[in-house]
């Protein structure tokens, strides 16, 4: 898609385009990300994204850590969907080392990952509401439900965000006894909360007027830019790694893949809202059929030495395809540990999507990508 930036008009009153720095410190950049907007009045003529503020060497440090110490790094790459990222890394190590986790552990992982997806989408709706102008109302509704989910996670793992709960070969320890009933209770209250968010935002004419038809994306462009997750599905492509390349035990559950029509900002809202219902559906199915039994594979030695080899394990995180390319030379430290953040590719398409709109639209387009800066800069 070729972007023709408007040639500067030569009116008698010589006007210049000013560079507005939507800087690293800005309420709308969801973290430390800077956009240098060249603005002609309210119209954005050019946009130069600047990233790297959160670069902490998340790919270099694990080369000095034991395979179990690396899990902490994955909690901190995508800090809104830790169970999904841990799940991806742990599956990568298991595929390399040939470990088969027991059934119950697989179920626990799927349940927690899907609830974490709901929490992440709730965070999206809260932040998006603030971007579009709702004075914190959507934030409060979304965070009230996210708190209930975080309390549930605290009962299971002991932490509200950085869980470090999955292990290569299973999970650290078993679920508490009242987990099934607590989980059902949390799911019901969260579903009520999602209805409330739906009522507040989805049919609101002001939201419709602002988001409908804003920067539509065609499927071909989405594939070319490497978009994934809700951004890709909003364009109409039903590509979901849980369905296209089933990993873990996702192939045992019935769920639908919501897709949008024109790939504009409103479709992304619709797709994410629907995904929350689908995730709740998966969790309910998993809770019924969860077996009892051990939660850690047998015969794991104290120091996990992974045989030489490489694997690119990818998982459907709430933001898109989260991949870990793990290369091991047979020692107990990974040789190369590359993390493919979904927001990295999604963000690279920002310039093409944003140029030509108003300043207030660029803020919403950035909000609709639902970026997590740690995943972009690693």
């Amino acid at each position, binding site marked *: 898609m070729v972007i023709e930036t408007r040639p500067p008009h030569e009116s008698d009153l010589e006007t210049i385009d000013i560079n507005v720095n939507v800087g690293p410190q800005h309420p709308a950049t969801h973290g430390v990300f800077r956009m240098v907007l060249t603005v002609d009045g309210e119209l954005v003529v050019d946009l130069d994204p600047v990233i790297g503020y959160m670069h902490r060497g998340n790919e270099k440090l694990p080369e000095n850590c034991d395979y179990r110490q690396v899990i902490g790094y994955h909690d901190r790459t995508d800090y809104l969907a830790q169970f999904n990222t841990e799940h991806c890394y742990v599956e990568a190590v298991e595929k390399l080392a040939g470990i088969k986790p027991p059934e119950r552990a697989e179920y626990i992982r799927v349940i927690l990952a899907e609830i974490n997806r709901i929490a992440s989408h709730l965070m999206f709706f809260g932040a998006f509401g603030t971007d579009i102008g709702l004075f914190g109302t959507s934030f409060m509704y979304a965070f009230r439900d996210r708190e209930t989910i975080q309390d549930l996670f605290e009962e299971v793992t002991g932490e509200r965000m950085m869980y470090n709960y999955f292990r290569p070969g299973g999970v650290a320890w078993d679920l508490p006894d009242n987990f099934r009933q607590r989980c059902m209770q949390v799911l019901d209250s969260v579903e009520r909360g999602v209805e409330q968010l739906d009522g507040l935002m989805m049919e609101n004419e002001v939201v419709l007027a602002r988001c409908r038809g804003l920067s539509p994306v065609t499927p071909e462009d989405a594939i070319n830019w490497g978009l994934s997750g809700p951004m890709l599905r909003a364009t109409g492509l039903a590509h979901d790694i849980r369905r296209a*390349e089933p990993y873990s035990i996702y192939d045992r559950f019935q769920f639908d893949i919501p897709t949008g029509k024109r790939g504009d900002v409103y479709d992304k809202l619709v797709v994410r809202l629907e995904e929350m219902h689908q995730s709740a559906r998966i969790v309910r199915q998993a809770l019924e059929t969860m077996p009892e039994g051990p939660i850690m594979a047998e015969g794991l030695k104290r120091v996990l030495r992974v045989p030489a080899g490489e694997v*690119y394990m990818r998982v459907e995180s709430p933001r898109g395809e989260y991949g870990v390319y793990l290369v091991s030379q047979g020692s107990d430290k990974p040789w190369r540990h590359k993390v493919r953040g979904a927001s990295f590719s999604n963000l*690279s398409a920002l310039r093409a999507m944003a140029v030509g709109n108003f300043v207030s639209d660029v803020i919403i387009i950035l909000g609709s990508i639902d970026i997590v800066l740690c995943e972009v800069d690693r």
Partner: protein
Amino acid sequence: MVHEAATAAPPQPIEPGPVARLFQSSLPGLALEIGQSPIDEVVTVRREDFARVMETAKNDEQLALDYLRCLSGVDWLTDLETVYHLHSFKHGHSIAIKVRCPVADAHVPSVSHLWETANWHERETQELFGIVFDGHPDPRPLLTEEGLGYYIMRKSHPLADIEEWQEDYLKTIEEAKSQMAVATGVAAPVDEKALKIQMAQQKAAVIKKARDEARAKGLSPEDEKAAVQDAIKKFEEEHAARQAAAPVTPAKPVDERAAKIQLAQQKAALITKTRNEARARGVSPEEERQIVAEALKKFSEEQEQSAAAPQAAPAQAPAAPSVPTAPMDRAAKIQLAQQKAALITKAREDARAKGLSPEAERQAVAEALKKFAEEQQAG
């Protein structure tokens, strides 16, 4: 577009999987090294025909690999490898394509004209690994700032051990150890970790200096690299020579950081003092600036004399971690705590002897503690 759920390519012995066979059929007579990872098939390609392979991968009907998932660089010490994980939406299959290039000549043709997402991935790999992607539209670094001089993800870049981050905390222990060693007359153990880090930093400095000279002389990239290589070799020989000549006994590390801070503070105080005087005299800004400059020059001369003079006062060991209270009442406190603990165990013993329930037992312990506290006040 119908998406049939592609079953993961079953791990087989190295005979080519379905996608690899497609590759062979669409690129007859091309040297393809076929491999198999737990999920995708792997095809290693020579650098010369890499561009052609990527063209067919994207445009060929059978392959139609139109989605570049992940582009990662890997440093195998002798050569650098870039791995492209591709996926096809039409057929639902995916494959990994690898290409290697020697460390000295790290050039790989860019694919950002085929897949838009390769733009950012290549910029990132370029700044972290030093692999130059020829034909990339905008080769600015993405994550790190301009002109870093060294490539972070390369194995040659030293990953300092975690102790490096705890300098001041560990310095206290080092200090204690060296004092204790001096006291007992045993030679202080040579701290190889600090030496290793120093060596690496010097090496990085040497590389940077060599590269700047080469660039200053306007050499072409190849002999610039050659210049850097022999600078490194020269540095190694010198180091080995110095090593052999005099076994290095580590002088007690004067805590320069604290000294530097002190120096800076003195300078700042001096500047403000002179500036206030100048302003009091109502001097014009230029003279004011000269006066401050002279004061600073005078101050730095004094510094040289005092530095030439006998060694600066040994830097005082930074405060030992969290031993706030004076030792005397700490012992009293420990003693008090031990008494309390003994009391608790005694109260617990007789409560259990009487066979009380856990709650009653806890009350018993609480009363014992209260009684003990009253005795303390009274006593």
